[in-house]
């Protein structure tokens, strides 16, 4: 039995301009222990879908079954009880601004009628887990975005949920903070076996932690499956678009990893424009010197209407022909420079 089953769920909103179908016959199954990504461009209906999972939005049609319980059949009181099984975090953190960090985390515990003393003890443990126990007495306004999201995670975990719903949880954070929060979520998934549903528009988030993914467009799921499969064989246009946007941030990190792993020879970055792209420069180089040249990255970008190509090449570790090969590349009209990922990163 899957942890969350979405069966033929549709949701229509009445607006001034008529009826808007936010969700259209969505079917998803999420297994216990999954980190399930739901990705789509804005307006794809993903936030509505995640709100249907804890009935913050009531679907117009279809069933939502969480841990074997069909939410639509539950009484108000029973539904609230069920919500304690499902923590939720948000893009804008949604903390109580007039309460301390500690009291924010205590809030769900008071709902469970825990005494003040017990609640505080447990809240401190949770703040320890998310790595922010030194801020217990601070107010949310005094925290950074990443810290606020950690508080929100601690609060969402307070009622010992089996499921954590994340609605664009990293979208308001910078890349470094995003990584740290994702790592924390992964860690929570590993340690407590909590099923995580990640709503996001960033493919990098899915790639980093989700084992399964559903891609949404205009209220429908256009593709779903294991993240690896979707990345290898995207079958829909939306997926390819989302993947394309992701490449940018991805390659730099990947090269850094490769660099560590292969410990190869000197790396250079070459930049070529449309004209020099006609000549098989790299192939000629290899043929002439009879030694392999590794292509770590190749990319073409549109810079002001001109196709600019960028390639990162790596020479053999003990090659004696490096200088000669560089000169030949220069002679072919290419701009070359020594490439060093770490230095590159510091520049940014």
């Amino acid at each position, binding site marked *: 039995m899957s942890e969350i089953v979405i069966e033929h769920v549709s949701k229509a909103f009445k607006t001034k301009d008529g009826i808007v179908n936010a969700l259209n016959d969505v079917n998803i199954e999420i297994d216990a222990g999954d980190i399930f990504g739901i990705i789509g461009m804005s307006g794809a209906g993903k936030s509505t879908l995640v709100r249907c999972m804890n009935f913050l939005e009531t679907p117009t049609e279809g069933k939502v079954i969480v841990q074997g319980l069909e939410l639509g059949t539950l009484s108000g009181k029973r539904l*609230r009880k069920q919500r304690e099984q499902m923590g939720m975090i*948000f893009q804008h953190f949604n903390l109580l601004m007039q309460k301390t960090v500690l009291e924010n985390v205590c809030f769900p515990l008071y*709902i469970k009628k825990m005494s003040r003393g017990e609640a505080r003890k447990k809240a401190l443990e949770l703040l320890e887990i998310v790595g922010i126990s030194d801020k217990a007495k601070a*107010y949310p306004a005094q925290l950074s975005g990443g810290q606020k999201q950690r508080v929100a995670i601690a609060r969402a975990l307070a*009622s010992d949920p089996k499921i954590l719903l994340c609605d664009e949880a990293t979208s308001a954070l910078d890349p470094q903070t995003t990584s740290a929060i994702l790592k924390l979520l992964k860690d929570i998934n590993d340690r407590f076996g909590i099923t995580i549903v990640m709503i996001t528009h960033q493919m990098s988030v899915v790639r980093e932690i989700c084992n399964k993914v559903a891609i949404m467009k205009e209220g429908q799921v256009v593709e779903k499956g294991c993240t690896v499969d979707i990345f290898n064989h995207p079958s829909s246009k939306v997926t390819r678009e989302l993947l394309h946007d992701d490449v940018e941030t991805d390659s730099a990190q990947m090269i850094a990893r490769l660099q560590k792993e292969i410990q190869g020879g000197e790396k250079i970055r070459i930049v070529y424009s449309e004209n020099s792209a006609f000549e098989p420069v790299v192939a000629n180089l290899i043929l002439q010197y009879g030694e392999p040249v590794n292509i770590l990255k190749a990319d073409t970008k549109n810079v002001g209407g001109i196709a600019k190509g960028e390639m990162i090449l790596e020479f053999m570790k003990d090659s004696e022909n490096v200088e000669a090969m560089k000169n030949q590349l220069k002679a072919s009209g290419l701009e070359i420079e020594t490439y060093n990922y770490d230095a590159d990163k510091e520049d940014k």
Partner: protein
Amino acid sequence: MWTKEVINMIEMGILETVYMTLVATFAGYILGLPMGVLLCVSDKGGLKPNAVLYKVLDIIANIVRSVPFLILLILLIPFTRVVVGKSYGSSATIVPLVVAAVPFIARMVESSLKEVDSGVVEAAKSMGAGNLRIIIKVLLVEARTSLITGVTIAIGTILGYSAMAGTVGGGGLGDIAVRYGYYRYQSDIMMVTVILLIVLVQLFQSTGMLVANKLDKRKK
């Protein structure tokens, strides 16, 4: 002319004005706060939308607020007599003051509560909080600063109304100003009472803002 009697009278006037203002504000909040909460909760997009309830409260608030206070004061004389036993003096003035203040306070409470970030309410719902808990622990707490600012505004307005009641023998500084300044052309006494009224409003205003800022945890 600054005889002991006049000074005594002005002292009494200050006390009566403060008494009317504070009691009327307090009583106004006892009724106006729940009314404001109901207005906020029952409105479209509220915690428990209820079009009928909202409309009824909305109309009541609008009717009372559209009657000028002086007219309301006169209209309510029979009612005041039933409640207090007489229709003049500071205690009697409290009755129309409360009637006028309740819808006014309710509107301010409503708008304060509506300022609360809907995301925070959603978060509380996602944790399994019921409506009553959300009202008490989320809406009223998060809107605290705005609510206190509202109290300050209410006190200022009610103090102004109480002075207006002076025209029909309502007691307090307003009463003195009308009797001496209007009927006896003793404008010096009127000026003093006006200055005292200004000072009182200033005092209430500064104290209110001080408390509101002190309790606001959103900055720093």
